[in-house]
C-alpha cells in the first residue's frame, strides 16, 4: 500500500514539474529584441529596418509551427525570427521589406491606402505608390498608435506557381516584392504593430495561430 502511495505521489510530482516547466518555458519565451541599424547622415540619417515576410516560416526557424506565416528581421547580416524592434525616439525609420508571400486580400479596404509614412507613399519594386488594389496585399505593416498603415502587395499567382519560397529565411532568388517606406517616431514608448490581413491559414476567419502569437504577424516597436 505504502509503495503504491509513494508511486502515485512521485508520478503526481513529476507530472506537476513537467507542467510547471512547460508553462514557465511558454511564459518566458519572448522574441529577442532587434535594434534598427543606424543610417549614416550622408545617406539621409535615421535608422534602417530590414524585414521579410514569408508564407511558411519553416522547421529551421520555427520547429513547432513550420507552416505559419511570419515576419523576420535582419540583424548583423542574419535573418532573425523576431517581431520586437528597437528604434530611436523622434527619428526617421527607413523600412525595406521583402514580401515573399502571395496575395490574399484585405478584409478592410481602408488599409489599401498607405498612411502615416513620409509623404504618404511607399515604393513597390522601385515604383512610388500611395495605394494598392485591396486584393493585392499579402500582409500589412501597421502601427495603429502612430497612424502607420502600409499594405504589402504579395507575389502573383503565376509567380507563386513558378517559384515560391516555402521556408524562411527566403533568398532573393525567389519571386518577391521589394517595398520601402519611411516613418517618423515620436516620444518613447512601446507601440504594438500588427498585420491586418487575416493571414492565419486554417484558422477561423484567418485570425488565429500566427495572428494571435507574438513573434509572427505582430509585435512591438520599442521607441527608445
Amino acid at each position, binding site marked *: 500500500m505504502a509503495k503504491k502511495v509513494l508511486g502515485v505521489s512521485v508520478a503526481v510530482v513529476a507530472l506537476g514539474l513537467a507542467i510547471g516547466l512547460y508553462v514557465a518555458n511558454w511564459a518566458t519565451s519572448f522574441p529577442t529584441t532587434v535594434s534598427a541599424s543606424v543610417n549614416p547622415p550622408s545617406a539621409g540619417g535615421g535608422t534602417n529596418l530590414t524585414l521579410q515576410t514569408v508564407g511558411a516560416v519553416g522547421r529551421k526557424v520555427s520547429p513547432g509551427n513550420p507552416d505559419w*506565416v511570419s515576419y523576420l528581421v535582419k540583424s548583423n547580416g542574419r535573418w532573425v525570427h523576431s517581431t520586437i524592434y528597437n528604434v530611436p525616439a523622434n527619428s526617421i525609420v527607413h523600412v525595406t521589406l521583402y514580401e515573399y508571400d502571395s496575395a*490574399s*486580400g484585405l*478584409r*478592410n*479596404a*481602408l*488599409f*489599401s*491606402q498607405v*498612411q502615416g509614412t513620409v509623404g*504618404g507613399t511607399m515604393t513597390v519594386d522601385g515604383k512610388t505608390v*500611395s*495605394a494598392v*488594389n*485591396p486584393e493585392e496585399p499579402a500582409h500589412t505593416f501597421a502601427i*495603429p498608435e502612430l*497612424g502607420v*498603415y502600409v499594405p504589402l502587395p504579395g507575389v502573383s499567382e503565376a509567380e507563386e506557381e513558378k517559384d515560391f519560397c516555402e521556408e524562411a529565411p527566403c533568398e532573393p532568388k525567389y519571386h518577391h516584392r521589394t517595398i520601402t517606406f519611411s516613418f517618423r517616431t515620436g516620444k518613447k514608448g512601446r507601440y*504594438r504593430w*500588427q498585420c*491586418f*490581413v*487575416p*493571414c*492565419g*491559414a*486554417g*484558422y*477561423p*476567419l*484567418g*485570425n488565429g495561430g500566427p*495572428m*494571435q*502569437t*507574438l513573434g509572427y504577424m*505582430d509585435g512591438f516597436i520599442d521607441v527608445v
Partner: protein
Amino acid sequence: MSSSPAVGSGPSSGEPNHARRFAALWLVSTVIALPLVILLIGPLLGPGNGSDQSTLQRTDMTVLAGVATPVILLVMTMLAYSLIYFRQEKGAALEGPAVRGDARIQATWIIVTSLIVLGIAIFGTVELEAPDGAGSGSGPNPLTVPSGPKLPVQVIAQQWLFTYRYPTYGGVETSVLELPVNETVEFNVTSLDVIHSFWAYKLGVKADANPGVDNIAYAKPTEEENFEVHCAELCGIWHGAMKSKGSVVSDSAFNTWIHEQQTRLAPATKVLPTYSKTYNPEPTRRAE
C-alpha cells in the same frame, strides 16, 4: 460593556435595548450619510458629463450609491456595534446563546433584500436602454430614438482596431473618431470578424460589435474634450491594445477635419465597399 448578548430575546434587567439602540444609530448615520453621498460623492461618479447620456448614467450611479448607502451602513454599524457591545471578555471561553429562528426577522430580511435586488435589477435594465440605447446598444431597431437631426457614424470593429465611417460625408472611413459638440450621433456598431464591444466611456456609450449586426446607440456630446475608445469584449491577443483616440470638437473644427479626411483618404474611399449597415467580407483564400 456586556458579555451577555441579548440576541433572540428581549432585554433582561439592566441590559440596554440593543435593537432599539442599534436601529437609532443606523437611522442617524443614514440620515447624515445619505445626503453627503448624493451631494458630494455623486458628482464624482463616472462616466461624467461628456454627453447627455453620460450625465444620465451619472444620475443612475448616484441612485445606486444612494440605495447602497443604508445597506452598507447597516452592515458596518452592526459590525462596529457588535465589536463594542458584544465583545467577549478576555479569558472567557463562552459560547454565545443559540440563535433560534425568528419568522418576523426572516420574512422581513427576505422581503426587503428581494425588493432591493429586484428593484435595482429592473432600474438597471431600464436605464441601460432608456438613455437612447447608449448603455448597451439597442440592436438594429432601437426602442427609443432621440428626436431631431442625427449624425450617423458607423463603428467598424476588427481584430484589433476600431475604424469609423461617415456615410453622410461620402462614406469616408477613418481610424480616429471625431465628433461635433451638441449634435446627436447615431452610432451604428458592427464587426468584420469576431465579437467586440465599442466603449466610449466618457460619452457613456458601450455597445457590442457583432458581425452581421447593426447595433445602434445614440449619444449627444456636450463638452469639447478628448476621450478614448476601448474594446470591452475579450477578442484575442491584442484586445488590451484595441483602443483609439477620439475627440469632441466645435462644429467648424469638425467640418474642417472631416473635409481634410475626405481629401486625404480619397484613394481608400474609392475602393471601400458601398456603405452598408453590416459587412460580410468573404473569408480569404488563406483562411479557408
